[in-house]
């Protein structure tokens, strides 16, 4: 097996035993990138020089017995996390030249362990999208079928992991942006509880929903990565001041008596038949492992998409106001200040970002605030209450991650509403702030991966990791690799 195909934990063992060097692992990663990246196009920036420098530092650390979990591990970072001195575009023309003067908290934690940054992964502009087709740079392709999208917005991160262009990746999830691409690319994607991981240095899309998480080849790596990135950050007032457990310790195959909730509102018409079949098989598999499947209700599910698109766009309309051409990024010259603002933003933002800024500005404007923003906040509370209520009866909730497997490039690009439905099973989780993981649970008749979503209570990532691990250990979906 080539080293680039390995997991974090697998590579860790080889590095620790000195069976391989960091450079050898990195050589395999870049050899793979050299052979497949022109087809996959997972990256906006490939940081080869920086990576080899980090590899040297990592090797020195290992040689002096100072290794940690991610020391020397090649990782891809979504291009919306600020990396000091490394171009961070957020998939947008408006930040086409932005080199952050500071490091995000999450990448600082990785750096402190001497990780190796492979590159900055492609994404939908400002994380708005479900296919990476909204990237100002290019569209990333699904390693399982080059004609299909990898999902989004963390499509570059997911494709890079699935294609073996890195060992693991970081993504961000506002309405499903880690889990949906993970599902479509046949890998594991975890969105932690809101507040579990610091957002400091993550370029904001919707502040009350955004959360950074890992995209990995298996559940063990997901727990391992979460161990590194989780924890309270004094620089992020919304990060929770609570202790971080050892998530790897929660991995065990024993789930006898585990109560898994099956929300009736999620098994609806319009789900792809292959997805439906794979998810139902997965539920039976969990039952066969001793879990008890219980039907639950999340009655406000039908309002989730509307609620999400009001709240997320409202926050985004304000978060994206700073891209005005004054301080950094793109600046168009106008005849006066107003002209400069308008030309810069007209040229710098793509159509989907503009659409959302307009939606959000509208929802917040005087006279409409109560009917839209305020109402949506109230519905958000109801959706959160739905989960609280359901979790009285069950330990985890299981749903499909996405209603369909990967769709073809261009298939939904012209129809935003159709595209928004890609996230129909993932957005409630962000609105409620609870953690959820997507794991591979089968393949469609077209040999495209299908994802299973497991949702847990606030700050109970251990329960979903445990469930996911037990399922993974009794199946082999996660071992399949895309034939590129």
């Amino acid at each position, binding site marked *: 097996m080539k080293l680039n195909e390995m997991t974090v934990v697998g590579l860790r063992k080889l590095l620790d035993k000195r069976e391989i060097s960091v450079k050898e692992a990195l050589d395999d990663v870049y050899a793979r990138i050299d052979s497949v990246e022109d087809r996959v196009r997972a990256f906006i920036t490939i940081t080869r020089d920086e990576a080899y420098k980090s590899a040297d530092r990592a090797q020195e650390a290992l040689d002096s017995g100072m290794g940690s979990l991610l020391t020397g591990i090649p990782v891809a970072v979504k291009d919306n996390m600020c990396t000091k001195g490394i171009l961070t575009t957020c998939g947008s023309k408006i930040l086409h030249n932005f080199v952050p003067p*500071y490091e995000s908290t999450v990448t600082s934690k990785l750096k402190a362990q001497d990780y190796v940054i492979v590159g900055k992964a492609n994404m939908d502009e400002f994380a708005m999208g479900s296919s990476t087709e909204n990237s100002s740079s290019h569209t990333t392709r699904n390693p399982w079928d080059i004609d299909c999208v990898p999902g989004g917005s963390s499509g570059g991160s997911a494709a890079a992991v699935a294609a073996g262009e890195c060992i693991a990746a970081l993504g961000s999830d506002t309405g499903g942006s880690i889990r949906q691409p993970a599902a479509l690319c046949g890998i594991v994607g975890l969105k932690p509880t809101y507040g579990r991981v610091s957002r400091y240095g*993550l370029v*904001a899309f919707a*502040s009350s929903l955004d959360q950074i998480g890992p995209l990995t080849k298996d559940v063990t790596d997901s727990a391992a990565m979460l161990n590194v990135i989780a924890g309270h950050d004094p620089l992020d*007032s919304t990060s929770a001041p609570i202790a971080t457990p050892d998530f790897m310790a929660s991995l065990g195959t024993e789930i006898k008596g585990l109560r898994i909730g099956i929300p009736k509102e999620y098994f609806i018409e319009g789900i792809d038949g292959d997805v439906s079949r794979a998810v139902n098989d997965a539920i039976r598999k969990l039952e066969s492992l001793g879990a008890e499947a219980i039907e639950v209700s999340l009655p406000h599910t039908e309002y989730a998409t509307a609620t999400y698109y009001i709240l997320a766009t409202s926050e985004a309309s304000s978060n994206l*106001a700073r*891209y005005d051409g004054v*301080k*950094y990024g793109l600046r168009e010259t106008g005849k006066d200040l107003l002209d400069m603002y308008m030309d810069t933003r007209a040229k710098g933002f793509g159509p989907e970002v503009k659409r959302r800024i307009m939606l959000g500005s509208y929802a917040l404007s005087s006279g409409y*605030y109560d009917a839209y923003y305020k109402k949506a906040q109230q519905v958000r509370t109801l959706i959160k209450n739905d989960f609280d209520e359901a979790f009285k009866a069950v330990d985890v909730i299981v749903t499909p991650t996405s209603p369909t497997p990967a769709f073809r490039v261009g298939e939904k690009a012209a129809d935003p509403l159709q595209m928004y439905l890609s996230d129909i099973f993932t957005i409630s989780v962000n609105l409620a702030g609870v953690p959820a993981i997507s794991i591979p649970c089968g393949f469609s008749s077209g040999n495209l991966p299908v994802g299973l979503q497991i949702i847990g209570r606030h700050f109970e990532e251990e329960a979903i990791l445990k469930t996911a691990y037990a399922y993974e250990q009794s199946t082999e979906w996660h071992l399949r690799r895309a034939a590129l």
Partner: protein
Amino acid sequence: MKNSADAILKKYEVVIGLEVHAQLLTDTKIFCRCSTKFGSEPNTQTCQVCTGMPGVLPVANKKAIEYAIRTGLAMNCSIAPYSRFARKNYFYPDLPKGYQISQYELPLCEHGFVEIITDNEVRRIGITRIHLEEDAGKNIHEGRGDHSFVDLNRTGVPLMEIVSEPDIRSPKEAAGYMKKLRAIVRYLGVCDGNMEEGSLRCDANVSVRLFGRKEFGTRTELKNINSFKFVEKALEYEVKRQISIIEDGGTIIQETRLWDSAAGVTQSMRSKEEAHDYRYFPDPDLAPIVVGKDLMDSIRAALPELPDEKRKRFMDRYGLPDLDAELLTSEKAIADWFEEAVRAGGQAKTVSNWMMGDLMRIMNEENKSIEDISLKPAQMAGMLALIENGTISGKIAKTVFEEMCRTGKDAAVIVKEKGLVQISDTGEIEKAVDEILAKSPGEIARFRAGDEKLIGFFVGQVMKATKGKANPKLLNELLMKKLK
């Protein structure tokens, strides 16, 4: 003409509400740890947070919150156990995020009041709310050609906005209210109260209505009142402007007007139709401000004696008249100075007289605060003791006092150096008296004929001959004896 103009003015009731911005005396900014020091090179007191870099997050300065609570308690407000920061969205180059973090729906302090004395009447002015917000930067238009520059040193400096009810009924009262606010924030040590340097800023909402009318007249908002001396002047202008429009059959336009201090007029800046829609919404990056009972109790316990309490105590304990007490307690430093002088042995009313007269005159002339004056309170007490024991006369003391203020030397030293000891030797004074009387037979005759005012002439001549050092009491006695 004058009388009829006054009569017209008297038909109208003036309604004023003030919005005061007070810059808080914290060492660091409200949402980052940059210094708040004034007057540094442009953009040297900035970081990624206050310059609005992508991905940064605000963290609230606890001290700023405590200062606002302290002010709220001093102004009899109720402190919200739960309040929120909100975003005020607008584009301007000095606003790097494209929104100002302020408070909107849930301010920190509400429903308070302050008392002021106008025309011997105690008036209670309601405080609607006190909330926290961040200051903006500064645009610099002078410089190179058609470019403007932005200095972000001030961006994020904490401000407290104190909004009054429309309870103020005259420009004079507005000035009194401003003075009271200034005294309170300075007593609390939360703001230096300097209007000229912009650390205390005042916007006014002004309207007029015929006496007896219930509904308010259309108001204008007055901005740029940047000095204490302009508060009354600007408002007087605006009130007269509004009344003359109404008297001429016109209507007041709701608009924002700028005070032009050079021209002494207010000028239209923007009308209501051009008013911004700020699209306020709760800032999702900041946790709600939760004020517990412990914090409230400790802030309350640490409140200093406030101007009103001090004024009452000065009247009770020192037997000072209202006017003296008001003036001496206008500044905590002045009040402290007074009390120290009294503790050092000065008689309260005498100390007060010297402070309100000569000391404040010298402070004014030399544009010095009481802290900058070389004279110390104990030295004043020392000088008063010299008058008391007859070493110097009250008249000589005036000269000594000026010298003390200039040099900081003790009165006894100055008296000795300049030979200012009072002549209390009867023989010496008698000699001088005899010499003068011998030269003034005509005046003696007139005095004896009943022109008793001439006593002043004799006193003056003797004082001149003794260089003012003759003991006035002894001199008077001798003159009366010899002239009878």
